[in-house]
């Protein structure tokens, strides 16, 4: 479904389905005609659990590794890193890799490596229960 959505967005709007780019684009000075589809994409993304619930499906509540401060620290790193690195799991990891972009392949290897390393440090070296 993630792949189908990515292909659909390119076929219809000619855009890469990179969530950090779609959201981040709203923080810049917007070009004309470039705002509504971004907002609608985000509304669709956020409405998905609600649609599944309305259709009678079960949606797990997210189990978080920490409280407000912990999650804010993670969020700051994710936001700063994706804006600096020009993409996230979807933009680099799925769409960019599908285009065989050297930048995306390098970025994906890097964030996978630091993600694994961070979890290793937190869970196995620091002994955190996260």
């Amino acid at each position, binding site marked *: 479904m993630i792949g189908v*959505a990515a292909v659909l967005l390119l076929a219809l709007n000619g855009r890469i389905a990179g969530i950090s780019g779609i959201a981040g684009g709203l923080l810049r000075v917007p070009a004309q005609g470039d705002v509504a589809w971004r907002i609608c994409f985000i509304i669709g993304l956020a409405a998905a659990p609600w649609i599944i619930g309305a259709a009678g499906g079960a949606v797990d509540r997210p189990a978080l590794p920490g409280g407000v401060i912990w999650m804010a620290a993670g969020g700051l790193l994710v936001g700063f890193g994706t804006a600096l690195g020009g993409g996230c799991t979807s933009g680099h990891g799925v769409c960019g890799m599908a285009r065989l972009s050297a930048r995306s392949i390098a970025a994906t290897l890097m964030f996978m490596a630091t993600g*694994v390393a961070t979890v290793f440090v937190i869970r196995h070296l620091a002994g955190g229960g996260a």
Partner: protein
Amino acid sequence: MMRAFAGLIAGLIFGLGLVVSGMSNPAKVLNFLDIAGAWDPSLVFVMGGALMVTFAGYRLVQRRSAPLFARAFSLPTKRDVDARLLFGAALFGMGWGVAGYCPGPAITSSTLGGWPTWAFRIAMLAGMFIAQRLPARSPMKAASTR
């Protein structure tokens, strides 16, 4: 109008994929990244599947000269792997390992979690805002070209 509608539908399908696959649950993502512990490899198949569908679909789509609702394809044009890209990706991975959220699942969880998920989303937007306003030629980039 059609572009906005296409955005809504693509976002919805993307979000359904994230929820159904479990990517919208940080605990599952952290277990996926925890290869030295109780590793949960199922997200390999989620991302691999998405990648294969996108790989094939993009090739079909790009046989056309333009997308349906826009004048041209808007594809990234940068080619060089620079320090900014690698440093950004490294920080992103660290944040992913701390919180278990990347941007898509964080937005999909808007109606699910409480304050901590909002703390993540607000901090994420703040981080993007700051990074976008850094000078194009940062000290890191200067170091890489020295």
